[in-house]
């Protein structure tokens, strides 16, 4: 009888520890309160990305930029509504837009301070709370490029360092076989 209760105690401890580790592992990622918002957003963006791909294949950079600019107008789910994945989707779209704007400065030209506004709008206020991912790192790096164009070298360096640190973490995770 005494032996049985000891086994139960050890089993309970193990299960509790396992639950704790699972909870800690998921701590960096916020599950969406509204999965339907994420699903709808992902479907929309999937279609838009494909459209941009086709436009770029036709070398219609202006059309691609216009399509991505149009996406800025929609309402993006918050982190609470859509979880981390919604923010990653947003950073991906803004990163693509900013990349085109930086690579083709003569098409629908915008001043550098407006590009900085795009970068900040895309990153939002909760980017720092987001689990490390390549889309946020890329958008942060491009924010550095815009700051460099504005001769704000110190701020640019900060952005580059942040992006490099994110990529370092991601590459380490990749090399260790983890889930970035």
């Amino acid at each position: 009888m005494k032996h049985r209760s000891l086994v139960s105690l050890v089993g309970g401890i193990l299960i509790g520890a396992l639950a704790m580790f699972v909870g800690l592992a998921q701590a960096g990622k916020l599950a969406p309160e509204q999965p339907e918002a994420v699903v709808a957003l992902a479907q929309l963006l999937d279609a838009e990305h494909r459209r941009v791909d086709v436009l770029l294949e036709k070398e219609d950079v202006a059309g691609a930029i216009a399509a991505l600019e149009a996406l800025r107008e929609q309402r993006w789910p918050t982190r609470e509504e859509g979880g981390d994945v919604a923010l990653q989707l947003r950073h991906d779209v803004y990163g693509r837009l900013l990349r085109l704007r930086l690579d083709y400065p003569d098409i629908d030209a915008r001043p550098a301070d407006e590009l900085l506004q795009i970068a900040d709008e895309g990153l939002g206020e909760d980017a720092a709370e987001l689990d490390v991912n390549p889309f946020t790192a890329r958008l942060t790096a491009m924010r550095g490029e815009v700051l460099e164009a504005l001769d704000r070298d110190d701020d640019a360096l900060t952005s580059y360092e942040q992006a490099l640190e994110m990529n370092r973490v991601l590459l380490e995770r990749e090399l260790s076989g983890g889930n970035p």
Partner: protein
Amino acid sequence: MSAGNENGRPARKPKVLSEDWEVALRAGQEAEGLAGSVEDELAVVHLLRHARAPEGLAEARLDAVWADIDAELEASAPRPWWRRRWTWIGGTAFAAAAAAAVLVIVIPNAGQTPSPPVAAGDDGEQQPQVAVAAGQAAALERQFQILAPGARRRVEQEVDDDRGQLRERLIAQARAAGGGSMGGAP
């Protein structure tokens, strides 16, 4: 026969190697009107004298002898490959060609000296910018290209998970609205 000395012992004959022989030979030669040669005999006497007590050579003479020996050896012995002239000339040329190949092929941008970007300051003076390398952004973009495919797959997986949650929720709502039955099933 022989004269005695002060101790009464007979006087010793001059030894073969004594210089007296040379003096006596020269005197005899002069007495005979310098007829005949005594050089061969004297040469033998010198040789025997030298064999008995080798005479040291003067320093300069010794150096000259060794120099002659070295010259003879150097002329006759084959040189090792690393001391041959063509080894040095060919080796130097090969090293120079290899260095040029490395610079041109392996490091294509080596010939371009990177110059730090400069920008005009407020006072109009040219100031070196902070070392914000243009390659920094390019390197980050390349890293993104490496990381992006995996990240997109994970995002798709999470969206699929959300879709599954949504489907379950809708089914549950439908069941609740249908009074615990769905599609006529009990």
